[in-house]
Protein backbone atom coordinates (compact mmCIF):
# COMPACT_ATOMS: atom_id res chain seq x y z
CA UNK A 1 0.00 0.00 0.00
CA UNK A 2 1.11 3.50 -0.77
CA UNK A 3 -0.56 6.86 -0.11
CA UNK A 4 -0.01 9.08 -3.15
CA UNK A 5 -1.27 12.26 -4.75
CA UNK A 6 -2.43 11.58 -8.30
CA UNK A 7 -3.29 14.16 -10.93
CA UNK A 8 -6.38 13.75 -13.09
CA UNK A 9 -5.27 13.87 -16.73
CA UNK A 10 -8.49 12.63 -18.31
CA UNK A 11 -12.06 12.13 -17.11
CA UNK A 12 -14.50 11.23 -19.84
CA UNK A 13 -17.86 9.53 -20.22
CA UNK A 14 -17.74 6.08 -21.85
CA UNK A 15 -21.47 5.48 -21.44
CA UNK A 16 -24.30 7.56 -19.91
CA UNK A 17 -23.25 7.04 -16.27
CA UNK A 18 -19.87 5.36 -16.76
CA UNK A 19 -16.66 7.39 -16.74
CA UNK A 20 -13.00 6.70 -17.37
CA UNK A 21 -10.48 8.60 -15.30
CA UNK A 22 -6.75 8.60 -15.96
CA UNK A 23 -4.56 9.52 -13.03
CA UNK A 24 -0.88 10.41 -13.18
CA UNK A 25 1.64 9.73 -10.41
CA UNK A 26 3.26 6.85 -8.60
CA UNK A 27 1.65 3.48 -9.32
CA UNK A 28 4.46 1.31 -7.95
CA UNK A 29 2.39 -0.24 -5.14
CA UNK A 30 0.05 -1.87 -7.65
CA UNK A 31 1.37 -5.38 -8.24
CA UNK A 32 -1.51 -7.42 -9.69
CA UNK A 33 -4.60 -7.00 -11.87
CA UNK A 34 -7.76 -7.04 -9.74
CA UNK A 35 -6.30 -4.78 -7.06
CA UNK A 36 -8.05 -1.53 -6.21
CA UNK A 37 -7.37 2.02 -5.09
CA UNK A 38 -9.19 3.99 -2.37
CA UNK A 39 -9.89 7.64 -3.13
CA UNK A 40 -10.36 10.52 -0.69
CA UNK A 41 -12.98 13.03 -1.83
CA UNK A 42 -13.82 16.49 -0.55
CA UNK A 43 -16.60 16.59 2.00
CA UNK A 44 -16.87 12.81 2.29
CA UNK A 45 -15.41 10.94 5.22
CA UNK A 46 -14.79 7.42 3.94
CA UNK A 47 -12.64 6.85 0.89
CA UNK A 48 -14.20 5.33 -2.24
CA UNK A 49 -12.74 2.02 -3.46
CA UNK A 50 -12.44 1.59 -7.26
CA UNK A 51 -10.74 -1.25 -9.16
CA UNK A 52 -7.71 -0.67 -11.35
CA UNK A 53 -8.50 -0.96 -15.07
CA UNK A 54 -5.14 -0.22 -16.62
CA UNK A 55 -1.60 0.74 -15.76
CA UNK A 56 0.95 2.41 -17.98
CA UNK A 57 4.13 4.05 -16.83
CA UNK A 58 2.92 6.39 -14.03
CA UNK A 59 -0.62 6.47 -15.38
CA UNK A 60 -3.43 4.61 -13.67
CA UNK A 61 -6.83 4.16 -15.36
CA UNK A 62 -10.04 3.58 -13.45
CA UNK A 63 -13.56 3.17 -14.81
CA UNK A 64 -16.44 3.95 -12.49
CA UNK A 65 -20.20 4.21 -12.58
CA UNK A 66 -22.00 7.12 -10.94
CA UNK A 67 -23.98 5.47 -8.15
CA UNK A 68 -23.86 7.98 -5.31
CA UNK A 69 -22.39 11.17 -3.89
CA UNK A 70 -18.76 10.11 -4.23
CA UNK A 71 -18.83 8.93 -7.83
CA UNK A 72 -21.07 11.93 -8.71
CA UNK A 73 -18.34 14.24 -7.41
CA UNK A 74 -15.67 12.32 -9.33
CA UNK A 75 -17.63 12.60 -12.57
CA UNK A 76 -17.41 16.39 -12.37
CA UNK A 77 -13.64 16.56 -11.91
CA UNK A 78 -11.52 18.26 -14.53
CA UNK A 79 -8.02 17.51 -15.75
CA UNK A 80 -5.52 19.00 -13.32
CA UNK A 81 -7.42 18.09 -10.15
CA UNK A 82 -5.30 16.26 -7.58
CA UNK A 83 -6.59 13.28 -5.58
CA UNK A 84 -5.30 11.66 -2.37
CA UNK A 85 -5.29 7.94 -3.17
CA UNK A 86 -4.27 4.75 -1.36
CA UNK A 87 -2.97 2.40 -4.05
CA UNK A 88 -2.08 -1.27 -4.31
CA UNK A 89 -4.95 -2.56 -2.15
CA UNK A 90 -6.24 -6.11 -2.11
CA UNK A 91 -4.76 -9.38 -3.37
CA UNK A 92 -5.73 -9.20 -7.05
CA UNK A 93 -6.05 -12.05 -9.55
CA UNK A 94 -3.49 -14.87 -9.61
CA UNK A 95 -2.39 -15.10 -13.25
CA UNK A 96 -0.32 -18.24 -12.59
CA UNK A 97 -3.48 -20.35 -12.41
CA UNK A 98 -4.87 -19.34 -15.81
CA UNK A 99 -3.87 -22.36 -17.90
CA UNK A 100 -3.62 -21.93 -21.69
CA UNK A 101 -7.18 -20.72 -22.30
CA UNK A 102 -8.42 -18.41 -19.57
CA UNK A 103 -11.99 -17.15 -19.71
CA UNK A 104 -12.80 -13.66 -18.45
CA UNK A 105 -16.39 -12.90 -17.45
CA UNK A 106 -17.27 -9.28 -16.67
CA UNK A 107 -20.53 -7.52 -15.96
CA UNK A 108 -20.97 -3.75 -16.18
CA UNK A 109 -18.35 -1.95 -14.09
CA UNK A 110 -17.00 -5.41 -13.24
CA UNK A 111 -15.38 -5.32 -16.69
CA UNK A 112 -12.52 -2.86 -15.91
CA UNK A 113 -10.26 -5.07 -13.72
CA UNK A 114 -10.44 -7.78 -16.40
CA UNK A 115 -8.83 -5.42 -18.89
CA UNK A 116 -5.53 -5.23 -17.00
CA UNK A 117 -5.78 -8.99 -16.44
CA UNK A 118 -6.15 -9.62 -20.19
CA UNK A 119 -3.22 -7.29 -20.79
CA UNK A 120 -1.07 -9.46 -18.48
CA UNK A 121 -2.26 -12.83 -19.80
CA UNK A 122 -2.04 -12.20 -23.54
CA UNK A 123 1.73 -11.49 -23.73
CA UNK A 124 2.27 -14.75 -21.83
CA UNK A 125 0.84 -16.51 -24.91
CA UNK A 126 -2.51 -17.34 -23.32
CA UNK A 127 -5.58 -17.59 -25.54
CA UNK A 128 -7.93 -15.20 -23.76
CA UNK A 129 -11.70 -15.15 -24.28
CA UNK A 130 -13.57 -12.22 -22.71
CA UNK A 131 -17.34 -12.30 -22.32
CA UNK A 132 -18.54 -8.85 -21.31
CA UNK A 133 -22.14 -8.32 -20.23
CA UNK A 134 -24.15 -5.13 -20.10
CA UNK A 135 -27.82 -4.23 -19.68
CA UNK A 136 -28.26 -2.47 -23.01
CA UNK A 137 -26.35 -1.23 -26.06
CA UNK A 138 -25.84 2.29 -24.64
CA UNK A 139 -23.92 0.89 -21.70
CA UNK A 140 -21.39 -1.17 -23.65
CA UNK A 141 -17.79 -0.04 -23.25
CA UNK A 142 -14.28 -1.38 -23.93
CA UNK A 143 -15.29 -3.92 -26.61
CA UNK A 144 -12.71 -2.51 -29.02
CA UNK A 145 -10.07 -2.17 -26.30
CA UNK A 146 -10.32 -5.89 -25.44
CA UNK A 147 -10.22 -6.76 -29.15
CA UNK A 148 -7.18 -4.53 -29.66
CA UNK A 149 -5.34 -6.49 -26.97
CA UNK A 150 -6.04 -9.66 -28.95
CA UNK A 151 -8.74 -11.21 -26.76
CA UNK A 152 -11.62 -13.07 -28.39
CA UNK A 153 -14.35 -10.70 -27.24
CA UNK A 154 -18.04 -11.52 -26.93
CA UNK A 155 -20.57 -8.90 -25.84
CA UNK A 156 -23.92 -9.76 -24.27
CA UNK A 157 -26.77 -7.39 -23.46
CA UNK A 158 -29.66 -8.32 -21.21
CA UNK A 159 -32.19 -6.72 -23.58
CA UNK A 160 -30.58 -8.05 -26.75
CA UNK A 161 -29.97 -4.56 -28.18
CA UNK A 162 -26.35 -5.43 -28.97
CA UNK A 163 -24.27 -8.61 -29.24
CA UNK A 164 -25.75 -11.79 -27.87
CA UNK A 165 -29.02 -11.50 -25.92
CA UNK A 166 -28.88 -12.50 -22.27
CA UNK A 167 -26.30 -12.65 -19.51
CA UNK A 168 -22.64 -13.61 -19.73
CA UNK A 169 -23.60 -17.12 -18.63
CA UNK A 170 -25.82 -17.43 -21.72
CA UNK A 171 -22.76 -17.09 -23.96
CA UNK A 172 -20.65 -19.94 -22.59
CA UNK A 173 -21.77 -22.74 -24.94
CA UNK A 174 -18.90 -23.91 -27.12
CA UNK A 175 -16.19 -21.93 -25.30
CA UNK A 176 -13.37 -24.16 -24.08
CA UNK A 177 -11.44 -22.77 -21.08
CA UNK A 178 -8.89 -23.89 -18.55
CA UNK A 179 -9.69 -21.42 -15.75
CA UNK A 180 -11.94 -18.40 -15.36
CA UNK A 181 -11.78 -14.94 -13.83
CA UNK A 182 -14.90 -12.92 -13.07
CA UNK A 183 -16.07 -9.61 -11.66
CA UNK A 184 -19.55 -8.12 -11.64
CA UNK A 185 -22.73 -7.72 -9.60
CA UNK A 186 -23.34 -10.51 -7.07
CA UNK A 187 -26.32 -12.13 -8.88
CA UNK A 188 -24.05 -12.48 -11.92
CA UNK A 189 -21.25 -13.96 -9.79
CA UNK A 190 -23.70 -16.53 -8.42
CA UNK A 191 -24.81 -17.45 -11.95
CA UNK A 192 -21.17 -17.78 -13.02
CA UNK A 193 -20.49 -19.98 -9.98
CA UNK A 194 -23.26 -22.35 -11.11
CA UNK A 195 -22.51 -22.26 -14.84
CA UNK A 196 -18.74 -22.78 -14.82
CA UNK A 197 -17.03 -26.16 -14.91
CA UNK A 198 -13.45 -25.33 -13.88
CA UNK A 199 -11.79 -23.61 -10.97
CA UNK A 200 -11.88 -19.83 -11.11
CA UNK A 201 -11.45 -16.53 -9.31
CA UNK A 202 -14.22 -14.16 -8.23
CA UNK A 203 -13.73 -10.50 -7.42
CA UNK A 204 -16.21 -9.15 -4.86
CA UNK A 205 -17.50 -5.68 -4.10
CA UNK A 206 -18.35 -4.57 -0.54
CA UNK A 207 -18.90 -1.36 1.38
CA UNK A 208 -15.56 -0.81 3.09
CA UNK A 209 -14.32 1.22 6.02
CA UNK A 210 -10.56 1.51 5.52
CA UNK A 211 -9.80 -0.70 2.50
CA UNK A 212 -6.53 -2.01 3.95
CA UNK A 213 -7.52 -4.54 6.60
CA UNK A 214 -7.71 -2.46 9.77
CA UNK A 215 -11.40 -2.15 10.58
CA UNK A 216 -13.05 -5.50 9.75
CA UNK A 217 -15.78 -3.55 7.97
CA UNK A 218 -15.97 -5.83 4.91
CA UNK A 219 -15.47 -9.31 6.36
CA UNK A 220 -17.05 -12.40 4.85
CA UNK A 221 -17.22 -16.06 5.75
CA UNK A 222 -15.43 -18.54 3.48
CA UNK A 223 -14.75 -22.25 3.57
CA UNK A 224 -11.18 -21.42 4.62
CA UNK A 225 -12.24 -19.04 7.42
CA UNK A 226 -13.15 -15.41 7.83
CA UNK A 227 -11.65 -13.08 5.23
CA UNK A 228 -11.52 -9.34 4.71
CA UNK A 229 -12.70 -8.50 1.18
CA UNK A 230 -10.26 -5.57 1.16
CA UNK A 231 -7.21 -7.54 2.29
CA UNK A 232 -7.45 -11.30 1.65
CA UNK A 233 -9.84 -10.35 -1.21
CA UNK A 234 -11.35 -8.83 -3.24
CA UNK A 235 -10.50 -11.98 -5.23
CA UNK A 236 -11.61 -15.31 -3.76
CA UNK A 237 -11.15 -18.75 -5.27
CA UNK A 238 -14.33 -20.53 -6.37
CA UNK A 239 -13.59 -23.42 -3.98
CA UNK A 240 -13.59 -21.21 -0.88
CA UNK A 241 -16.75 -19.17 -1.50
CA UNK A 242 -19.69 -19.47 0.89
CA UNK A 243 -22.70 -17.59 -0.47
CA UNK A 244 -24.49 -15.78 2.33
CA UNK A 245 -28.04 -16.69 1.28
Amino acid sequence: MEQVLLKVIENKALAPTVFRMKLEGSTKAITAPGQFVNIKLDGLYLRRPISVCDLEKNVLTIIYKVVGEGTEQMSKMKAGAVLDVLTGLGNGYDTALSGDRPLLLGGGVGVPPLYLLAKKLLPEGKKVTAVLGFNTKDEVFYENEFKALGAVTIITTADGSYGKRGFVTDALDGIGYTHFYTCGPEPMLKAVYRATKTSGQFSFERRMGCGFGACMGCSCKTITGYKRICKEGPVLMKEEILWED
Partner: protein
Amino acid sequence: MGRLNVDLCGIELDNPVIPSSGTFGYGHEFAKIYDINCLGTFSFKGTTKEERFGNPTPRVAESPSGCVNAVGLQNPGVDKVINEELPKLKECFHKPVIANVSGFSLDEYVYVCERLDKEDQVGWLEVNISCPNVHGGGMSFGTDPKAAALVTKAVKGVTTKPVIMKLSPNVTDITEIAKACEDSGADGVSLINTIMAMRIDIKSRRPVLGNVTGGLSGKAVFPVALRMVYQTAKAVKIPVVGLGGVSSAEDVIEMMMAGASAVQVGAANLIDPFVCKNIIEDLPELMDRLGIKNIKDIIGAAL
Protein backbone atom coordinates in the same frame (compact mmCIF):
# COMPACT_ATOMS: atom_id res chain seq x y z
CA MET B 1 12.74 12.40 29.07
CA GLY B 2 11.22 14.12 26.05
CA ARG B 3 8.74 16.96 26.01
CA LEU B 4 5.99 14.67 24.67
CA ASN B 5 6.25 12.15 27.52
CA VAL B 6 3.19 11.45 29.61
CA ASP B 7 2.37 8.97 32.34
CA LEU B 8 -0.52 6.57 31.88
CA CYS B 9 -1.42 4.79 35.11
CA GLY B 10 2.20 4.43 36.14
CA ILE B 11 3.68 3.55 32.75
CA GLU B 12 5.64 6.23 30.90
CA LEU B 13 4.64 6.86 27.29
CA ASP B 14 6.98 8.54 24.76
CA ASN B 15 3.99 10.58 23.65
CA PRO B 16 0.25 10.68 24.36
CA VAL B 17 -0.87 9.40 20.93
CA ILE B 18 -2.61 6.01 20.97
CA PRO B 19 -4.53 4.41 18.07
CA SER B 20 -7.81 3.22 19.52
CA SER B 21 -9.18 -0.28 19.58
CA GLY B 22 -10.93 -1.48 16.44
CA THR B 23 -9.15 0.95 14.12
CA PHE B 24 -5.67 -0.54 14.26
CA GLY B 25 -6.23 -4.30 14.24
CA TYR B 26 -3.32 -6.00 16.01
CA GLY B 27 -0.91 -3.51 14.44
CA HIS B 28 0.42 -5.45 11.42
CA GLU B 29 -1.32 -3.51 8.65
CA PHE B 30 0.21 -0.28 9.94
CA ALA B 31 3.62 -1.77 10.78
CA LYS B 32 3.95 -2.48 7.06
CA ILE B 33 3.71 1.21 6.18
CA TYR B 34 5.49 2.91 9.10
CA ASP B 35 7.47 2.08 12.22
CA ILE B 36 4.68 1.87 14.80
CA ASN B 37 7.22 2.20 17.61
CA CYS B 38 6.77 5.95 17.18
CA LEU B 39 3.39 5.60 18.92
CA GLY B 40 2.85 6.12 22.64
CA THR B 41 1.25 2.69 22.48
CA PHE B 42 -1.90 1.32 20.83
CA SER B 43 -5.03 -0.45 21.93
CA PHE B 44 -5.52 -3.69 20.07
CA LYS B 45 -8.76 -5.04 18.58
CA GLY B 46 -11.42 -5.84 21.20
CA THR B 47 -10.85 -9.42 22.27
CA THR B 48 -13.41 -11.88 23.60
CA LYS B 49 -13.16 -15.43 24.99
CA GLU B 50 -14.24 -17.15 21.78
CA GLU B 51 -13.65 -16.24 18.16
CA ARG B 52 -16.39 -13.94 16.80
CA PHE B 53 -17.38 -13.17 13.22
CA GLY B 54 -19.38 -10.11 14.21
CA ASN B 55 -22.34 -8.53 12.48
CA PRO B 56 -23.67 -9.02 8.95
CA THR B 57 -22.35 -6.59 6.33
CA PRO B 58 -22.66 -3.74 5.47
CA ARG B 59 -20.87 -2.80 8.67
CA VAL B 60 -19.83 0.74 7.80
CA ALA B 61 -21.80 3.72 6.50
CA GLU B 62 -20.80 7.20 5.43
CA SER B 63 -22.02 10.08 7.58
CA PRO B 64 -21.37 13.84 7.67
CA SER B 65 -17.78 14.28 8.96
CA GLY B 66 -17.71 10.71 10.18
CA CYS B 67 -18.98 7.19 9.77
CA VAL B 68 -21.35 4.81 11.48
CA ASN B 69 -20.02 1.31 12.13
CA ALA B 70 -21.42 -1.93 13.47
CA VAL B 71 -18.58 -4.40 13.17
CA GLY B 72 -19.75 -6.33 16.22
CA LEU B 73 -16.44 -7.26 17.84
CA GLN B 74 -15.03 -9.53 15.15
CA ASN B 75 -11.89 -11.04 16.66
CA PRO B 76 -10.05 -14.38 16.69
CA GLY B 77 -10.64 -15.05 20.41
CA VAL B 78 -8.20 -14.74 23.29
CA ASP B 79 -6.34 -18.02 22.61
CA LYS B 80 -5.37 -16.98 19.10
CA VAL B 81 -4.57 -13.45 20.23
CA ILE B 82 -2.11 -14.84 22.79
CA ASN B 83 -0.69 -17.63 20.62
CA GLU B 84 -0.60 -15.91 17.23
CA GLU B 85 -1.20 -12.16 17.34
CA LEU B 86 1.04 -11.24 20.29
CA PRO B 87 4.09 -13.18 19.01
CA LYS B 88 3.65 -11.50 15.58
CA LEU B 89 3.29 -8.13 17.28
CA LYS B 90 6.50 -8.66 19.23
CA GLU B 91 8.43 -8.52 15.96
CA CYS B 92 7.20 -5.05 15.03
CA PHE B 93 6.25 -3.34 18.32
CA HIS B 94 8.59 -3.18 21.29
CA LYS B 95 6.50 -1.25 23.80
CA PRO B 96 3.77 -2.37 26.19
CA VAL B 97 0.43 -2.58 24.33
CA ILE B 98 -3.08 -1.91 25.62
CA ALA B 99 -5.14 -5.10 25.59
CA ASN B 100 -8.75 -4.24 24.83
CA VAL B 101 -11.16 -6.74 26.37
CA SER B 102 -14.84 -7.28 25.67
CA GLY B 103 -17.34 -9.66 27.11
CA PHE B 104 -20.92 -10.82 27.27
CA SER B 105 -20.86 -11.83 30.93
CA LEU B 106 -18.93 -11.01 34.06
CA ASP B 107 -17.22 -14.41 33.81
CA GLU B 108 -16.06 -13.70 30.29
CA TYR B 109 -14.48 -10.37 31.23
CA VAL B 110 -12.72 -12.06 34.13
CA TYR B 111 -11.54 -14.99 32.02
CA VAL B 112 -10.12 -12.87 29.21
CA CYS B 113 -8.46 -10.39 31.59
CA GLU B 114 -6.93 -13.22 33.61
CA ARG B 115 -5.44 -14.71 30.43
CA LEU B 116 -4.07 -11.42 29.12
CA ASP B 117 -2.72 -10.46 32.55
CA LYS B 118 -0.06 -13.15 32.13
CA GLU B 119 1.31 -11.63 28.93
CA ASP B 120 4.43 -9.49 29.36
CA GLN B 121 3.68 -7.47 26.23
CA VAL B 122 0.42 -6.24 27.74
CA GLY B 123 0.88 -3.02 29.72
CA TRP B 124 -2.73 -2.14 30.46
CA LEU B 125 -6.12 -3.80 30.24
CA GLU B 126 -8.73 -1.59 28.63
CA VAL B 127 -12.10 -3.07 29.50
CA ASN B 128 -14.77 -2.23 26.97
CA ILE B 129 -18.11 -1.88 28.74
CA SER B 130 -19.42 0.31 25.97
CA CYS B 131 -19.74 -1.56 22.65
CA PRO B 132 -23.07 -0.43 21.17
CA ASN B 133 -23.09 -3.10 18.47
CA VAL B 134 -23.58 -6.35 20.34
CA HIS B 135 -26.56 -7.67 22.22
CA GLY B 136 -26.59 -8.88 25.80
CA GLY B 137 -23.15 -7.60 26.72
CA GLY B 138 -20.83 -4.72 25.99
CA MET B 139 -22.74 -1.52 26.53
CA SER B 140 -25.26 -3.03 28.96
CA PHE B 141 -22.43 -3.09 31.52
CA GLY B 142 -21.44 0.48 30.78
CA THR B 143 -24.81 2.19 31.10
CA ASP B 144 -25.48 1.24 34.72
CA PRO B 145 -23.10 2.39 37.48
CA LYS B 146 -23.71 -0.79 39.51
CA ALA B 147 -22.89 -3.09 36.60
CA ALA B 148 -19.83 -1.00 35.71
CA ALA B 149 -18.65 -1.25 39.30
CA LEU B 150 -19.18 -5.01 39.30
CA VAL B 151 -17.06 -5.53 36.17
CA THR B 152 -14.33 -3.22 37.46
CA LYS B 153 -14.08 -5.01 40.81
CA ALA B 154 -14.11 -8.45 39.24
CA VAL B 155 -11.41 -7.57 36.71
CA LYS B 156 -9.23 -5.84 39.31
CA GLY B 157 -9.33 -9.06 41.30
CA VAL B 158 -7.51 -11.02 38.60
CA THR B 159 -4.82 -8.62 37.41
CA THR B 160 -2.00 -6.51 38.72
CA LYS B 161 -1.86 -4.50 35.50
CA PRO B 162 -3.54 -1.10 35.36
CA VAL B 163 -7.20 -1.38 34.39
CA ILE B 164 -8.76 1.30 32.20
CA MET B 165 -12.53 1.13 31.84
CA LYS B 166 -13.75 2.23 28.39
CA LEU B 167 -16.98 4.15 28.78
CA SER B 168 -20.04 4.69 26.65
CA PRO B 169 -21.40 8.15 25.79
CA ASN B 170 -24.88 6.65 25.47
CA VAL B 171 -25.80 7.54 29.05
CA THR B 172 -27.46 10.45 30.81
CA ASP B 173 -24.42 11.25 32.96
CA ILE B 174 -21.08 9.69 32.08
CA THR B 175 -19.48 11.01 35.28
CA GLU B 176 -21.66 8.69 37.39
CA ILE B 177 -20.31 5.67 35.54
CA ALA B 178 -16.75 7.00 35.72
CA LYS B 179 -17.07 7.56 39.47
CA ALA B 180 -18.48 4.07 39.96
CA CYS B 181 -15.44 2.65 38.15
CA GLU B 182 -13.05 4.80 40.18
CA ASP B 183 -14.67 3.79 43.46
CA SER B 184 -14.32 0.12 42.45
CA GLY B 185 -10.60 0.39 41.86
CA ALA B 186 -10.24 1.35 38.19
CA ASP B 187 -6.82 2.84 37.42
CA GLY B 188 -8.19 4.97 34.60
CA VAL B 189 -11.12 5.53 32.27
CA SER B 190 -11.16 6.02 28.52
CA LEU B 191 -13.95 7.80 26.69
CA ILE B 192 -15.88 8.02 24.50
CA ASN B 193 -16.82 4.87 22.63
CA THR B 194 -19.10 5.54 19.63
CA ILE B 195 -22.44 7.30 19.83
CA MET B 196 -25.41 5.13 18.83
CA ALA B 197 -26.59 6.10 15.39
CA MET B 198 -28.05 4.78 12.14
CA ARG B 199 -28.47 5.53 8.42
CA ILE B 200 -31.26 4.59 5.98
CA ASP B 201 -30.77 4.12 2.25
CA ILE B 202 -33.58 6.31 0.88
CA LYS B 203 -33.64 4.42 -2.43
CA SER B 204 -34.14 0.96 -0.92
CA ARG B 205 -35.96 2.34 2.19
CA ARG B 206 -33.88 0.00 4.34
CA PRO B 207 -31.27 0.64 7.04
CA VAL B 208 -27.78 0.78 5.51
CA LEU B 209 -26.13 -1.33 8.21
CA GLY B 210 -26.72 -5.06 8.50
CA ASN B 211 -27.09 -4.53 12.26
CA VAL B 212 -29.58 -1.66 11.65
CA THR B 213 -27.95 0.57 14.30
CA GLY B 214 -24.27 1.32 14.76
CA GLY B 215 -21.93 3.76 16.42
CA LEU B 216 -20.98 7.19 15.10
CA SER B 217 -17.32 8.16 15.12
CA GLY B 218 -15.06 10.58 13.29
CA LYS B 219 -14.69 14.34 13.44
CA ALA B 220 -18.44 14.81 13.97
CA VAL B 221 -18.23 13.48 17.53
CA PHE B 222 -15.17 15.45 18.68
CA PRO B 223 -16.98 18.29 20.52
CA VAL B 224 -19.27 15.79 22.26
CA ALA B 225 -16.29 13.67 23.30
CA LEU B 226 -14.38 16.73 24.47
CA ARG B 227 -17.31 17.83 26.64
CA MET B 228 -17.56 14.39 28.25
CA VAL B 229 -13.80 14.18 28.86
CA TYR B 230 -13.94 17.62 30.49
CA GLN B 231 -16.86 16.66 32.75
CA THR B 232 -15.25 13.34 33.67
CA ALA B 233 -11.83 14.84 34.37
CA LYS B 234 -13.53 17.22 36.79
CA ALA B 235 -15.37 14.37 38.50
CA VAL B 236 -12.61 11.78 39.01
CA LYS B 237 -8.98 11.73 40.18
CA ILE B 238 -7.80 8.77 38.08
CA PRO B 239 -6.35 9.43 34.60
CA VAL B 240 -8.80 10.01 31.76
CA VAL B 241 -7.90 8.85 28.24
CA GLY B 242 -9.69 11.08 25.75
CA LEU B 243 -10.97 9.84 22.42
CA GLY B 244 -13.68 10.55 19.89
CA GLY B 245 -13.03 12.25 16.57
CA VAL B 246 -9.41 13.16 17.24
CA SER B 247 -7.74 13.74 13.86
CA SER B 248 -4.94 16.30 14.33
CA ALA B 249 -2.25 17.57 16.70
CA GLU B 250 -4.60 20.45 17.55
CA ASP B 251 -7.30 17.97 18.61
CA VAL B 252 -4.77 16.15 20.84
CA ILE B 253 -3.85 19.40 22.60
CA GLU B 254 -7.52 20.35 23.00
CA MET B 255 -8.37 16.93 24.48
CA MET B 256 -5.48 17.24 26.93
CA MET B 257 -6.55 20.72 27.93
CA ALA B 258 -9.96 19.19 28.70
CA GLY B 259 -8.24 16.84 31.14
CA ALA B 260 -7.04 13.86 29.10
CA SER B 261 -3.73 12.32 30.25
CA ALA B 262 -3.39 10.58 26.90
CA VAL B 263 -5.38 10.65 23.69
CA GLN B 264 -6.65 7.92 21.40
CA VAL B 265 -7.12 8.32 17.66
CA GLY B 266 -9.79 6.11 16.12
CA ALA B 267 -11.70 6.50 12.87
CA ALA B 268 -9.06 8.86 11.46
CA ASN B 269 -6.69 5.87 11.09
CA LEU B 270 -9.12 4.30 8.65
CA ILE B 271 -9.14 7.17 6.19
CA ASP B 272 -5.56 8.32 6.72
CA PRO B 273 -3.36 5.40 7.75
CA PHE B 274 -0.45 7.74 8.56
CA VAL B 275 -2.46 10.09 10.78
CA CYS B 276 -0.94 9.03 14.14
CA LYS B 277 2.63 9.28 12.84
CA ASN B 278 1.81 12.71 11.38
CA ILE B 279 0.22 13.94 14.61
CA ILE B 280 3.29 12.89 16.63
CA GLU B 281 5.54 14.71 14.16
CA ASP B 282 3.32 17.81 14.19
CA LEU B 283 3.07 18.13 17.97
CA PRO B 284 6.45 19.77 18.81
CA GLU B 285 5.99 22.61 16.33
CA LEU B 286 2.40 23.20 17.46
CA MET B 287 3.57 23.23 21.08
CA ASP B 288 6.23 25.82 20.17
CA ARG B 289 3.58 28.04 18.62
CA LEU B 290 1.36 27.70 21.68
CA GLY B 291 4.19 28.21 24.15
CA ILE B 292 3.89 24.72 25.62
CA LYS B 293 7.20 23.37 26.93
CA ASN B 294 6.15 19.91 28.03
CA ILE B 295 2.89 18.40 26.87
CA LYS B 296 2.03 17.05 30.33
CA ASP B 297 1.90 20.66 31.60
CA ILE B 298 -1.34 21.28 29.72
CA ILE B 299 -3.30 18.29 31.02
CA GLY B 300 -6.49 19.78 32.43
CA ALA B 301 -5.42 23.37 31.61
CA ALA B 302 -9.04 24.26 30.81
CA LEU B 303 -10.54 22.70 33.92
